[in-house]
C-alpha cells in the first residue's frame, strides 16, 4: 500500500504536468490562488455548521436544514482544494513530504475527516430526536468544537509551509 503510494507520487512528480507547474512562473501562483479560494470556502462553510452544532448561530433551524444549505458548497470546494493542492504537491513532492508542517497539515485534515465520520455515523445517528433543539447534546457540541480547532490548525500549518519550504 505505502509502496504503491510512493510509486504513484514518484510517477506524478515526473509527469509533464509537474514539469509545467515547476517551470511556468504563472501556473504555480494561479494554482495557489485557486487553492486559497477553495480552502477559504471549505473552512468558512464548515465553521458556519460548527457554530450551529455549538449552539452559537442559526439555532432556530435544525442541523439538517443548516447542513443542506451549506455542505454542497463545502464538498465542491473541498474537491477543488484537493485537485489544486495535489497539483501544487506533485510540482515539488519530495520537498513537501520532507516538510513537517506539510505532514502535520495532512494529518490534521485526516483528523477533521475522522471527527466528521465518527459524528456522522455515531453521534448523529439519533439526531432526529435533538437536532432542532437550540442547545445540542454534548457529543454534537464536542464534534463542532473539535472541528473548529482542527481547521484553525490546518490553516496555521498551511501558512507555515510557505515559510519553511
Amino acid at each position, binding site marked *: 500500500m505505502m509502496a504503491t503510494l510512493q510509486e504513484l507520487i514518484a510517477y506524478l512528480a515526473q509527469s509533464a504536468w509537474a514539469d509545467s507547474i515547476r517551470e511556468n512562473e504563472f501556473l504555480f501562483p494561479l494554482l495557489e490562488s485557486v487553492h486559497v479560494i477553495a480552502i477559504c470556502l471549505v473552512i468558512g462553510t464548515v465553521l458556519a455548521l460548527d457554530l450551529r452544532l455549538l449552539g452559537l448561530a442559526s439555532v432556530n433551524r435544525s442541523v439538517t436544514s443548516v447542513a443542506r444549505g451549506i455542505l454542497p458548497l463545502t464538498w465542491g470546494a473541498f474537491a477543488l482544494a484537493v485537485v489544486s493542492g495535489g497539483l501544487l504537491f506533485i510540482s515539488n513532492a519530495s520537498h513537501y513530504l520532507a516538510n513537517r508542517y506539510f505532514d502535520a497539515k495532512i494529518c490534521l485534515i485526516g483528523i477533521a475527516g475522522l471527527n466528521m465520520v465518527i459524528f456522522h455515523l455515531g453521534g448523529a445517528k439519533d439526531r432526529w430526536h435533538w437536532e432542532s433543539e437550540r442547545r445540542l447534546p454534548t457529543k454534537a457540541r464536542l464534534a463542532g468544537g473539535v472541528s473548529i480547532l482542527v481547521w484553525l490548525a490546518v*490553516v496555521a500549518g498551511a501558512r507555515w509551509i510557505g515559510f519553511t519550504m
Partner: protein
Amino acid sequence: MTATLIGFCSWLESTAPSQVVQNVGWIIPTVQTVHILCVAIVFSSAVLVDLRLLRLLGRDVPLPAVARRYLPTTWPVLLVLMITGGVLIVGEPRRSLLNSTFYIKMALLAVAIVMTLGLQRSLRASPNFWELTAARRAAAGIAAAASMLVWCGIIFAGRWIAYTSTG
C-alpha cells in the same frame, strides 16, 4: 507621488513597531493565518448569500433570513482584516504599498463592500425586493455572480502580492 511613497515606506520600516514585526519571526505567519481565517469567513458568507440569490443553495430558507444570518458577520470580521492587514503592511510596507496588485485588491474590496451594503439596505427596505419581478430576479443573479467574481479577484490579488512585490 512615488517618491513620497518610497520615503513613507522607508520611514515606516524604521519605526519601532515595524522593527518588531520584522525581527520576531512568528508574527507574520501568525497574523497571515488570522487574516486568511477572516477572509474565509467573509468570503464564505458572501458566497452562501450569492448562491441563495442565484437560487442554487438553501432555497428552503427565505433570502432575507440567509442574508441576516451571514452578512452582518462581514463588518466586525472586516475590522479584524484591516488590523491584521495593517500589521503586515507595517512589517513590510514596500511589499504592498509600492505594489500595484495591492491597489487592485483594495479597489476590488471597495466594490465588494458597496455591493454588500447595497444588498443589506435593499433587503431592509423591502425583504422581497429582489424577488418581485423577473427583471429584478435576473439583476440579482447577475449581481450575485459579479460578487463572487469580485471576491475571487480579491483573493487572487492577495496571493499575487507575494509574486509582484519589488521591495
